[in-house]
């Protein structure tokens, strides 16, 4: 059981901080990207709309690992030598951002046309309409799926271990190779991820029920 304790401490000190930091930073930037892209696509801005559609489809249609590999190996040829950490954040931002943009767009589209008409009839400009009527309502709708997306995002950070970035999963692999106890190592690793993700998962389901009741 000494090994279990050592593992626990190692995961907690070497792996967890990086995973959490990577998840948070990546998700915040992904929300920024996703919100802008989702809004622009919702407003059907010409030209941009098509380009962004290609971007979103590209991210939805590729495994995250491929996006990561691509950025990791191709960027240096374009004179962009990023660290493994920066590449990871970039990949996470682009990938999760695309999914968030779909959530944002979906939430905006879900607001009934009648809300737009009321606002227009009250002589509000497009910007006022979006700012005070549409977006506030869309935010409530988007919270449950966003919570679900956080879980997927955190799970994606484990893939980063493949490009040799030290986070939870990589710590697990290295340890397993040296301590010869793969089952125990991965069991504890799984517990860490479970502790991170399960509460958010429950939150997402709970939010979904609350929002459904509010919008009756």
């Amino acid at each position, binding site marked *: 059981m000494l090994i279990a304790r050592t593992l626990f401490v190692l995961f907690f000190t070497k792996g967890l901080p990086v995973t959490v930091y990577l998840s948070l930073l990546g998700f915040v930037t992904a929300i920024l990207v996703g919100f802008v892209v989702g809004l622009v696509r919702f407003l059907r801005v010409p030209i941009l709309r098509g380009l962004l559609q290609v971007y979103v489809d590209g991210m939805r249609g590729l495994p995250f690992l491929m996006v990561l590999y691509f950025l990791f190996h191709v960027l240096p040829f374009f004179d962009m030598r990023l660290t493994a950490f920066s590449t990871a954040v970039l990949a996470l931002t682009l990938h999760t951002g695309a999914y968030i943009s779909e959530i944002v767009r979906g939430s905006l589209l879900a607001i009934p046309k*009648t*809300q737009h*008409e*009321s*606002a*227009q*009839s*009250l*002589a*509000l*400009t497009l910007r*006022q309409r979006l700012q*005070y*009527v549409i977006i*506030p*309502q869309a935010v*409530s709708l988007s919270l449950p799926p966003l919570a679900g997306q956080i879980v997927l995002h955190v799970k994606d950070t484990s893939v980063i271990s493949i490009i040799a970035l030290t986070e939870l999963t990589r710590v697990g692999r290295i340890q397993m190779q040296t301590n010869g106890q793969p089952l125990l190592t991965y069991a504890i690793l799984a517990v860490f991820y479970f502790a991170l993700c399960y509460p958010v998962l429950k939150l997402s389901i709970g939010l979904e029920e609350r929002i459904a009741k*509010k*919008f*009756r």
Partner: protein
Amino acid sequence: MSIVEVRDIHKHFSQLHVLKGISFEVDVGQTVVFAGPSGSGKSTLLRCLNGLEKIQRGSIQIDGLSVHDHKVNLLDVRRRIGIVFQQFNLFPHLTVLKNITLPLIKAKGIEAGKAKQIAMDLLQKVEIAEKANVYPGNISGGQQQRAAIARALAMEPKVVMFDEPTSALDPELTGGILEIMAALAKEGMTMLVVTHEMAFARRAANQMIFMDDGVIVESGKPEELIENPSHERTKRFMQEIGDK
């Protein structure tokens, strides 16, 4: 000059010809009721008046402004027209009070304190002042419609349009709304009302326009159209309505 001037307007929804040459005028202070079967184009007509729908031919003038002219700012037109919808269409995420003050502050540039005063006075008038800080989801349909009316009136419009304002309400709540509308008409507000409530038309309207299939079939004093219509279609419609 009339405050509402509609000249030969035509509207298509792709292949469907919905308005086929509608023309009429409304003077200041008049109340006009639009009646007719569903699909006759009454709601579409109202929506063309404040620019929610576009017209393909003809012209609409509200208070001297040509609604569908590119050079005219649609916001100016919309500040002059209030509209009350069948489904109330209040903003669910704002309190009743905020529903009214938001457009006052943002679209008319009125300062917050004054906006609140105007809103409370109107809520008092429609008798739901105690619900000012409640959300629309927590009040009845009748109360929501009162709030919607207050919201439209707060903008101090020259013309108020009502699109079947009582159709979505339970029968016992309908009376209250019609009372408010009748009082408003008496105060001299120019009103265009789409409704099936003939008793209201008789009581409060100066003019009734009967529409069917995108055209005005006949128009005149409400009592005349209801009791002694000249056209066959009008007669048939009034009989069907009368059987309620």
